[in-house]
């Protein structure tokens, strides 16, 4: 086991990792920016080291400073959390060159899975279904029509350089295809100065379901069940739950074994998440692997009783997984709500400032992860995630009721938060039904 871990992150995930280190009796050092100086979670670390200014590029993204901090602190491992440097293969390499273990997968599997085309090829190889697509840039009208017919309409045209929905265009019929391609190319050229486009089958009203996996460095890979993250707004997850209300046990088993196959094929180790879209006909399509811990990992911790951060650390220290697939027995129903300091009535505009009143929910079936407290100044420089409230109950209806009462107890003043928005979601018949899709939140509220 490591003697001392440096945390290259901030806020709730830094606190989460501090807690895991404490429980493992590993010393913990937290890197922080000037903006985060004085935050209470830093006081729970054995040491905290200022690595730069408020802007992430001056501190949390500055890999040299992070490694230097680990060196001066005598840390033998770095936990990157999520975001920032967590999926940076070059950073992982650099850590290991400096004899500091990077708590995450090998840089090679990070690179492999970070390359969308390579990941698709890998999925095909192990017979995991992917969203049918052109697998590259389209050349010539004839090929385009042929590929589209093979994929099947409706298709979506995407710019290779794209992002944020720009250049995207849904085509329902062959007759509209070529004109749409032309327009998409023009739009892509205007937006990204690169007109290359490709096409994929358009998955209408999908659900987002992901599988948590854990893999050690001795070839053992297990899945820990799925999380349903369908409730999103502009690709930001707002609420996650497990089990998914939309899939049955046969499909769950298919999804989970697909995830394990992919991880094995990629030579993956440590914690990772394999993301899928599920269409209205309950077909699922692999999208990508998140090669790091995720914000919503506590959902799985509560269904399985397995501490994922401790598992990450143990795996990186070379230990074998302590349990077999058979020993993983998810139980009950878990929901996580993300409490962001954002004003739902003002298009989710982030709200920074000092928290004057902060009363946490508690009692049975409730877990709260937060770095907030009365007097904490929430910085506008970083993510607006202030707290994660989780509930675990025997059944989904009970979990919904428990979450309603927990959110009802949560007092945060004077900042605006997503609390009232989440209450509206929990009370919505479509959510209660389990019949929502990824567009639900944007269409409905």
């Amino acid at each position, binding site marked *: 086991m490591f003697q001392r871990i440096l945390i290259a992150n901030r806020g709730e995930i830094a606190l989460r990792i501090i807690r895991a280190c404490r429980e493992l009796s590993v010393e913990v050092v937290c890197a*922080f920016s*000037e903006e985060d*100086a*004085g*935050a*209470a979670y*830093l*006081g729970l*670390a*054995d*040491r*905290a*080291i*200022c*690595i*730069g*200014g408020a802007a992430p590029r001056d*501190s949390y993204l500055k890999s*040299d*400073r992070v*490694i*230097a*901090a680990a*060196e*001066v*602190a005598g840390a033998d491992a770095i936990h990157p959390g999520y975001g920032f440097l967590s999926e940076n293969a070059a950073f992982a390499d650099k850590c290991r060159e*400096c004899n500091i273990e990077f708590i995450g997968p090998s840089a090679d599997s990070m690179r492999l899975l970070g390359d969308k085309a390579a990941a698709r090829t890998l999925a095909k190889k192990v017979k995991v279904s992917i969203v049918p697509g052109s697998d590259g840039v389209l050349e010539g009208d004839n090929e385009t029509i042929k590929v589209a017919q093979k994929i099947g309409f409706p298709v979506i045209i995407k710019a290779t350089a794209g992002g944020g929905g720009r250049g995207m265009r849904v085509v329902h019929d062959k007759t509209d295809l070529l004109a749409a391609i032309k327009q998409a190319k023009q739009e892509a050229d205007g937006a990204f100065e690169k007109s290359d486009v490709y096409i994929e089958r358009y998955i209408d009203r999908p659900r987002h379901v992901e599988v948590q996996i854990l893999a050690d460095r001795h070839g053992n890979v297990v899945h820990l069940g799925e999380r349903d993250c369908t409730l999103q707004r502009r690709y930001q997850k707002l609420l996650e739950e497990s089990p998914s209300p939309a899939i049955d046990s046969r499909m769950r088993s298919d999804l989970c074994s697909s995830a394990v196959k992919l991880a094995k094929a990629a030579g993956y180790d440590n914690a990772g998440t394999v993301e899928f879209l599920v269409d209205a006909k309950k077909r699922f399509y692999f999208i990508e692997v998140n090669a790091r811990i995720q914000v919503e990992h506590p959902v799985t911790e509560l269904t399985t009783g397995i501490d994922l951060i401790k598992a990450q650390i143990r795996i990186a220290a070379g230990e074998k997984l302590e349990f077999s697939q058979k020993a993983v027995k998810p139980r009950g129903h878990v929901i996580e709500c993300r409490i962001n300091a954002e004003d739902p009535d003002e298009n989710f505009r982030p709200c920074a400032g*000092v928290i*004057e009143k902060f009363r946490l929910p508690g009692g049975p079936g409730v877990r709260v992860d937060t770095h907030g407290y*009365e*007097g*904490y*100044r929430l910085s506008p420089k970083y993510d607006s995630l202030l707290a994660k409230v989780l509930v675990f109950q025997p059944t989904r209806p009970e979990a919904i009721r428990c979450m309603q009462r927990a959110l009802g107890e949560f007092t945060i003043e004077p900042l605006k938060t997503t609390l009232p928005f989440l209450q509206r979601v929990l009370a919505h018949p479509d959510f209660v039904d389990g019949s929502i899709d990824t567009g639900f939140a944007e269409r409905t509220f």
Partner: protein
Amino acid sequence: MLPDIDKIRELVEMMITNDLVELSVRDGEQEIALRRSGPVSNDVVVGAVPQVVAPAVDGGGAGGNADGAESTVGGEVVPVDFVEIHSPMVGTFYTRPDPESPPFVHVGSQVGPSSVVCVLEAMKVFSEIKAEASGTIERVLVEDGEAVEYGQPLFLVRPA
């Protein structure tokens, strides 16, 4: 003698915790008067972190040059007209380029903006740090071989 800094710190904390806006304590010659603007942050100072220089009462920016107010280093009161040289990185502080050489500077050395005052080592790379100010080295705030964090004061300079 001036009142103990720790006592003042305690009073300030008490003000913040209890949302006081004014506090004054007097005993004969001694007097402490504190005033806060409105509802201010309750930020806690982390004990594990070397204290960044900050003016005692008005809570200006951490690590800024000490100007316009008294500031404290290691509990002592520092007159307003010194300038600090801060560490621009995380690393290990060395006063000399190699063990055989003399220190770049010592107390009393005259420095200009481009004078090298020390080297900082990080990831086996040694970086020379320049004074960025003109004057006389008044104090060396870090021991040779000590680890320093970003923004940590390294030298006190009496401006020319």
